[in-house]
């Protein structure tokens, strides 16, 4: 059995990364992620982990150094946020398209401008088309568990796609709570040493990594990547079940459902707002509203089938986003859920809610208001106006 440690979200990510025995960690400080990198440097300094720590000069190099180490067959880790993620976009996209597995924590943060250092998911959401698997976590326990599961998913021979473990900056990264930290032995049993060698640079088996590739062949690589992404859904669920057997904790795989069974109205949440959302559901239930919650865990691959099934027979839903879609003028996950539902969308009363940008809170009152609005419109199918969690002027 493990040990209950009181950890911030960032330290939960560091603890998990340490347990996964990375060969190399390269990270660059950025608020609110910095303590992930600091803690791993401390672990290396005190000898708790035997990992190379590379003190790079920026996130572009952080991703590039881990890319080199992964291309030499190593297990690697890094963490970032916001501007750092934007800065590393070039090697970030390449990591997934070279099909090199790794885990990167993103302590999500709003993108500048206006100048801000606080929470928001615009950073990670904006790069969801870069070929990575993305999972969003609610509790610090989930952060720790998903970093560990992340390596199993990423390194699975039928996946070989890097994984982002995302969690809310400050609201999770700096939130302190008890976390059940497994023993090294348990983790070693669950997560064997990396054995991926589909692209390992080695003079003993020389090949060119990434020759110039013409369009028709490039498209074959893209198609393979997409198929692996789709196939990852089953593997994610499988690994969730295996993890539950060993550690007693299941998160439901692609999505988590809460009190949806007999629900009329459903809120769809992501990351740290989920816990608040569950409380709001309970309060609504006490008031006689048949409310339920779906937590988007993975958004790449997008759990379209699961969402369709979970919303079957419901009357109304709202997707709450901590980011925006410029151009659709709504929350990006609302757009994606509508795409998942296809023609069935119009049978629901539904709307997008946007809140929590730039560190703003998503309060119980905000979510409760959403549930009440859903209840009010549930018998009038069609899309309603976007709800912004803003105080009235």
């Amino acid at each position, binding site marked *: 059995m493990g040990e209950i440690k009181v950890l911030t979200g960032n330290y939960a990510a560091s603890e998990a990364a340490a347990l996964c025995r990375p*060969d*190399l960690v*390269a990270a660059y400080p950025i608020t609110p992620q910095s303590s992930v990198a600091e803690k791993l440097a401390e672990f290396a300094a005190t000898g708790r982990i035997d990992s*190379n720590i*590379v*003190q*790079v*000069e*920026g996130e*572009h*190099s952080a991703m*590039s*150094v*881990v*890319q*080199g*180490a*992964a*291309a*030499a*067959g*190593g297990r*690697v880790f890094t963490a970032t946020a916001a501007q750092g993620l934007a800065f590393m976009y*070039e*090697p970030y996209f*390449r990591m997934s398209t070279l099909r090199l597995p790794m885990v990167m924590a993103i302590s999500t943060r709003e993108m500048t401008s206006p100048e801000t250092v606080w929470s928001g998911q615009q950073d990670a959401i904006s790069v969801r088309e870069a070929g990575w698997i993305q999972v969003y976590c609610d509790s610090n326990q989930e952060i720790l568990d998903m970093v560990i599961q992340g390596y199993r998913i990423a390194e699975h021979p039928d996946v070989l796609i890097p994984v982002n473990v995302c969690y809310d900056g400050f609201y999770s990264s700096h939130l302190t709570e008890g976390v059940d930290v497994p023993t090294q032995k348990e983790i070693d049993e669950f997560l064997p040493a990396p054995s991926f060698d589909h692209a390992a*640079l*080695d*003079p003993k088996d*020389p*090949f*060119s*990594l*990434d*020759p*110039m*590739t*013409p369009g028709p*062949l490039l498209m074959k690589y893209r198609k393979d990547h997409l198929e692996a992404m789709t196939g990852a859904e089953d593997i994610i669920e499988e690994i969730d079940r295996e993890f539950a057997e060993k550690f007693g904790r299941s998160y439901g795989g692609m999505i988590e459902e809460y009190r949806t069974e007999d629900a009329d109205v459903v809120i769809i949440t992501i990351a740290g707002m989920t816990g608040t959302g569950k409380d709001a559901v309970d309060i609504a239930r006490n008031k006689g509203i048949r409310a339920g919650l779906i937590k988007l865990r993975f958004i790449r691959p997008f759990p379209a089938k699961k969402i369709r099934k979970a919303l079957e027979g419901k009357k109304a839903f709202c997707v709450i986003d901590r980011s925006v879609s410029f151009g659709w003028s709504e929350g990006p996950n609302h757009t994606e859920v509508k795409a998942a539902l296809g023609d069935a969308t119009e049978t629901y009363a539904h709307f997008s809610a946007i809140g929590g940008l730039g560190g703003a809170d998503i309060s119980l009152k905000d979510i409760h208001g959403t549930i009440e609005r859903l209840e009010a419109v549930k018998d009038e199918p069609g899309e309603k106006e976007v709800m912004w969690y803003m105080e009235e002027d």
Partner: protein
Amino acid sequence: MSYLDVLKNAEDMVSPGISACQGCGGELILRRVLQIAGPNTIVGVPPGCMAGAGVVGWNYQNGMKIPVHIPLLTNIASFLTGVSQMYERKGRLDVNVVAVAGDGGTADAGFQALSAAAERDEKMLYVCYDNEGYMNTGYQRSSTTSLGSRTSTTPIGDVINGKRQHQKYVPLILAMHECSYVATVSPSDMPDMIRKIEKGLEASKKGFAYIHAFSPCPTGWSYKEDMGIEVAGQAVRSNLFPLWERDEEGFRLKKNPSPISVREFVEGIGKFRTLTEKDKDALQELADRRYATVAALAGMAE
């Protein structure tokens, strides 16, 4: 062993047919560096003429006999940091980790990663083939383009006549990083070049070794294909490209007892065709100052 014996016995690691231009200085430098490094080598060649010439391969085909990767223009030194550290972890320090990059990937877009890797003294040999411009994309200016050069982005006009700034002197900047080894080489002095490549590889087992190679470019500079060695030799003799090295013992400059004038060097090179007298004076002053600076660092009296 003489440098000729070294070359005679050194296997070519690069595909024999690559689409570098006739008389390309970069191809000559690439082949020599990898011949000396040998089969137990991992090499990174970022976007640029050499990568464009096919040395990373096409489709499913390899461009070399050794593992080669085309990293980003911006990250070669960082990418190879990861490779190098993994090989050290595996206890395989015998594997050479080598970068062969142009001046764009070195002095401009790749400079931040290069500077950081040099400062961390990462174990690798980094060779820059400096042809003074982005030749692969059509001869645009770079920060190592010489004053007055005609390039696609510093064309000749009545208002602006070629590049208006001096080149950035990258090797000395690298030397100031206090990394393990820094040297300048020119293919016109092949014994010196081979010796420094050997020394750089040895130094790369202890830290960061940087070699800055003068890489004449017939296509971008507009001179006849057979003139490359002559052009490189004139650059050295004019003191625009002094040959020096810096190791743990300090700076050493290869003496140039009878220098030629910069005017003699630029004669016949198309990209310098419209140099003004003022430009020529400025280049001469630069050559004099550069040689004097390195001589002073090497503790050599003028």
